[in-house]
């Protein structure tokens, strides 16, 4: 009789313990992709002083290649016109997050989006 209990509970425990790190790792890798793309966009943005269409397209292409839906990505910047040299440019990327847990044991709210935020200083000289 105890053998049945062990088998029922242990199998489930084992399944969770194998699935959870895998989910965690996928979640982590996607977060890294979002963050590094925000940094990439910030570095590319500095010479022009603003987020240009070329950089925007390149970032969306990168994220789409990593499996994100292009239309669900929010790519924003603090400016729509070139900032002059020495001013700060902010780039922010938000995209929907995968479910992080195979089973939710608590009622805590889980973050629903990945956030990548990067700063750079404008190099633009009009």
């Amino acid at each position: 009789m105890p053998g049945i209990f062990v088998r029922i509970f242990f199998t489930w425990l084992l399944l969770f313990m194998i699935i959870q790190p895998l989910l965690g790792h996928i979640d982590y890798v996607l977060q890294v992709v979002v963050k590094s793309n925000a940094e990439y966009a910030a570095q590319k943005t500095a010479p022009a002083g603003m987020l240009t269409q070329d950089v925007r397209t390149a970032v969306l292409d990168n994220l789409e290649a990593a499996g994100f839906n292009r239309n669900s990505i929010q790519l924003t910047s603090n400016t729509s016109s070139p900032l002059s040299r020495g001013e700060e440019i902010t780039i922010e990327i938000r995209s929907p997050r995968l479910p992080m847990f195979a089973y939710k044991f608590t009622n805590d709210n889980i973050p629903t989006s990945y956030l990548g935020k990067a700063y750079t200083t404008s190099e633009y000289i009009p």
Partner: protein
Amino acid sequence: MDKVFYIISTVFILVMGWLLQEEFQSWDQQRQLLKNANNQAVHTALQNADDFNEGLIDLSPTATQATYLKALKKNLGLDDQLTPKSGSPARSTIRLIHFEVIDSYDHTFPFVFEDQNYHITKYLRGPAVFAVIEMDYPLLMNRPRPAPIRVPSIFEYAIAS
């Protein structure tokens, strides 16, 4: 009894694997955070160059370092001792272990800059700022602490030809 040992050892191995995975991920995350922050700070420090006297780009070492530290502190949410404030993504205190301004007074450009200690090489076409920061390895389990995370960054002021 064998069954109990089997269950305990399986759970133990899986938990250890999971914890190590989390630890390596957080190492990687912290390293990327430091690298990006250092890149951003050396870039900002170089924008300090605004004296184009006699066609030379003049970088004052003290003013450049002050701008560098200000940018680093703002980006990572650090206090004056470079210790993370609450809410900062950095795990522990950051140490600035090397800061160097390479300008037109001491060097003739272009040349190949190489630092054997911090393993960085770059072909420099103009004045540059070079900084190295360090942070303790972020441990999750109690074990001997591996080598600290150390990131060098360099940024040059080159005029496109």
